[in-house]
């Protein structure tokens, strides 16, 4: 045992915790199995109408196997594979997020370069930033009209602030020495921005982008519950209306996994631009 590395021991412990946790969960829900043993007749007459209960992990695993073996089936508006639903959500998140990045990063750059602009914009940012993105939904639905575009707008508005603030902060904090290096080499403003300020501020900018993608993924679930139609948020809500808690638990897990993957992607990018001084 003494030969295991720190990481190996941690991984072992994780697996152990998972197994113990699942066993406790399984043991805590004994009655559910009975539902499956009802006869066709009993179900049809509603005698044993499955009371919505939290499913045991075994059922969730079966569900997951079932869903993940055919994630992209499409059987009408209320019955699409989990892959399709997640695909819709990711599409909305990325569209809103990229639009936000397209505005927040250049704009944050300009604000960060000028102290006056930084101070002038700060009060607006500070007021707009703490607004729950969902609070914009009614306004968005009214002005934009389209529910799909409204959901994207909500993602846009929630992911813009961390990117804007971090970009401005990162750019404003670039060491004057480095800017002086650019100046003594007669680099123009554009060249300085791309070869000195951008790489210098990149770690801070990416931190903002990483926070934003996390928030966007949190918000999309709630937004889709509101606008309905498609997406993982709608799926959760729909399965709740169907009283299919197994699917609800399964989709909760999927939301977590996708969120983790998105975060890991940005973590990887962040590591690539981070430098040691």
């Amino acid at each position, binding site marked *: 045992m003494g030969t295991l590395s720190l990481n190996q021991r941690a991984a072992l412990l994780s697996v152990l915790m998972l197994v113990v946790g699942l066993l406790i969960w399984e043991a805590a829900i004994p009655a559910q199995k009975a539902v499956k043993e009802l006869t066709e007749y009993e179900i049809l007459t509603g005698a044993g109408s499955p009371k919505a209960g939290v499913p045991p992990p075994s059922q969730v695993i079966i569900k997951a196997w079932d869903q993940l073996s055919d994630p992209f089936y499409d059987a009408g508006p209320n019955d699409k594979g989990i892959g399709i639903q997640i695909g819709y959500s990711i599409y909305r998140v990325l569209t809103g997020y990229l639009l936000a990045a397209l505005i927040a990063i250049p704009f944050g750059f300009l604000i960060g370069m000028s102290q006056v602009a930084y101070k002038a914009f700060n009060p607006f940012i500070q007021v707009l930033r703490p607004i729950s993105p969902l609070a914009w939904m009614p306004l968005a639905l009214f002005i934009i009209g389209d529910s799909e575009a409204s959901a994207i707008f909500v993602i846009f508005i929630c992911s813009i602030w961390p990117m804007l603030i971090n970009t401005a902060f990162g750019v404003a904090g670039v060491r004057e*020495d*480095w800017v*002086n*290096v650019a*100046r*003594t*080499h*007669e*680099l123009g403003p554009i060249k300085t921005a791309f*070869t*000195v300020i951008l*790489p*210098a501020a*990149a770690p801070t900018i990416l931190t903002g982008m990483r926070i934003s993608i996390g928030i966007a993924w949190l918000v999309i679930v709630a937004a889709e519950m509101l606008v309905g139609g498609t997406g993982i948020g709608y799926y959760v809500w729909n399965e709740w209306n169907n009283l299919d808690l197994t699917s609800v638990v399964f989709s909760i897990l999927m939301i977590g996994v996708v969120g983790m993957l998105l975060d890991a992607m940005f973590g990887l990018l962040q590591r690539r*631009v981070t*430098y*040691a*001084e």
Partner: protein
Amino acid sequence: MKPFLSIEKLVQKFPNGNGGEMTVFENASFGVEKGEFVVILGHSGCGKSTIMNILAGLADPTSGCVIMDGQEVKGPSLDRGVVFQNYSLLPWLTTLKNVTFGIKARHPEWTKSQVEEHATNFLAMVGLEGDVIHRKPSQLSGGMRQRVSIARAFANHPKLLLLDEPFGALDALTRGTIQDELLKIWGQMEQTVFMITHDIDEAILLADRILLMTNGPYARVAESVEITIPRPRNRTEIVEHPNYYAIRNHLVQFLGKRSKELAGQPTEASKTNKPKTVRIDLTDPTEDPENKRSTLKAVNS
């Protein structure tokens, strides 16, 4: 005939924090000849870095001007290379890329391989070869970083090289090695150098001429001391030269005593305010021993 670099009646005032003004130096005037190695010595806070930033074009003086090669200095330029005290390497670039960064700015028309070859040559000149040049500055020692910074500046062949306490953060041994390297490169390139230091021995080893500044505020460049020790110099041999201790004593005297006595006097005495030229040469056969005392004092030019 104007010298290559001419500093004319430079005045620098800063707000003193209580709504008033503080004059760092007033009417600072001096010249530097082409190919000369000039070192400026003075106590902390007298305004050396301020002068250097003005020479680099990174800061504007309150009044006065700097003329280089017949043109007034306005803003930074590739013709004036700067080695900053804290190296100022870009930490996200490798050693090689830090040097090519400068060369690309100077020669945008060069091909990638030309640029890299040039950079590699100059890195080799300061003793950085092989794997090291692909490492990031954070993976280098302080001395190595300083060498990269020097290579970056030299590789661009600036008309004037400005060094702000380039060896301030280094230990004595590393300092010695890099001083030797600096002398070697300077010897090969006929580069005009203006350097700030706190170290008297370093100044004597490197300089053709040492400018002495009085304490601030109202600091002045009071004297210009010629280093009458022939080149090539070598740190172990120059101490045996008869002029070495005479010059050293003069400098120590100035920094220890006279820099204070001369300090704080707003100038009116000499309008041009050129520093007094001091030439100490005990080996000069044309001077008889009786004259030595006066030579030691001052010769006004």
